[in-house]
């Protein structure tokens, strides 16, 4: 089943836009430490990139890569990544939960001081982005499941 307006233009636009949006989301995520951006915004952009195919080519085809269960699992995993980083910091000898300096004690060589904390915050931002993306996709799919015949 294709979208409501089955046109080559719409399909082509979706095919061009979705990967671009994904790249942009990764850029926003990775540059959160240096410029405006971060996990929440990147998650929203990532979710948009997975929702474009659903709108352009229909729910059934659009769901092929990021299915609803996968999105939900992704949302839960994001929180686990975040909390897991905090726990890892405690296990590695940090003084408090989310003490990123403790990541220096990982078994492979790590930079000292500020950069280590930046790596910790990057991992945490990835978790936030996963959660936001998963929740947005899950809600979109669940809201449209009854109107699914239309899209």
């Amino acid at each position, binding site marked *: 089943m294709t979208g409501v307006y089955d046109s080559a233009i719409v399909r082509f636009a979706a095919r061009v836009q979705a990967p671009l949006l994904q790249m942009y989301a990764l850029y926003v995520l990775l540059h*959160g*430490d*240096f*410029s*405006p*951006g*971060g*996990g929440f915004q990147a998650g929203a952009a990532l979710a948009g990139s997975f929702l474009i195919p659903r709108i352009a080519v229909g729910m059934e085809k659009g769901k092929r890569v990021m299915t609803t269960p996968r999105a*939900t699992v992704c*949302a*839960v995993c*994001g*929180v686990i990544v*975040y*909390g897991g980083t*905090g726990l890892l910091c405690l296990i590695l000898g940090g003084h408090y*939960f*989310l003490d*990123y300096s403790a990541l220096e004690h990982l078994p492979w060589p790590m930079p000292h*001081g*500020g*950069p*280590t*904390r*930046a*790596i*910790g*915050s990057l991992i*945490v*931002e990835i*978790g*936030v982005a996963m*959660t*936001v993306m*998963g*929740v*947005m996709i*899950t*809600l979109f799919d*669940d*809201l449209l*499941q*009854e109107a699914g015949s239309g899209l």
Partner: protein
Amino acid sequence: MKWSALIGLVFAGALMVYSSPELPPFGASNTPPDTHVSPRYIEKGPEETGAENQVTGVIVDYRGFDTLFETSVIMIAGLATALILWGDHRERDP
């Protein structure tokens, strides 16, 4: 039950109005958050957190706990909404 909720609401509102004159005036620069933590964030943020962007430094490093539970709230709210929608769907076509 509804009456008790209304009474509680009125009580909470009255408490809020009663305490509002104690809030610092708009734009005041001598409040505890501005004199205590903000200068530290601005002066030592990049060096202590390793994040050039001060907002990111505050959000995920100084206030990492806050963001952790913000994320949990998003996940719980989203999953709860999804579960409600699923339940509705199942009731309609048994």
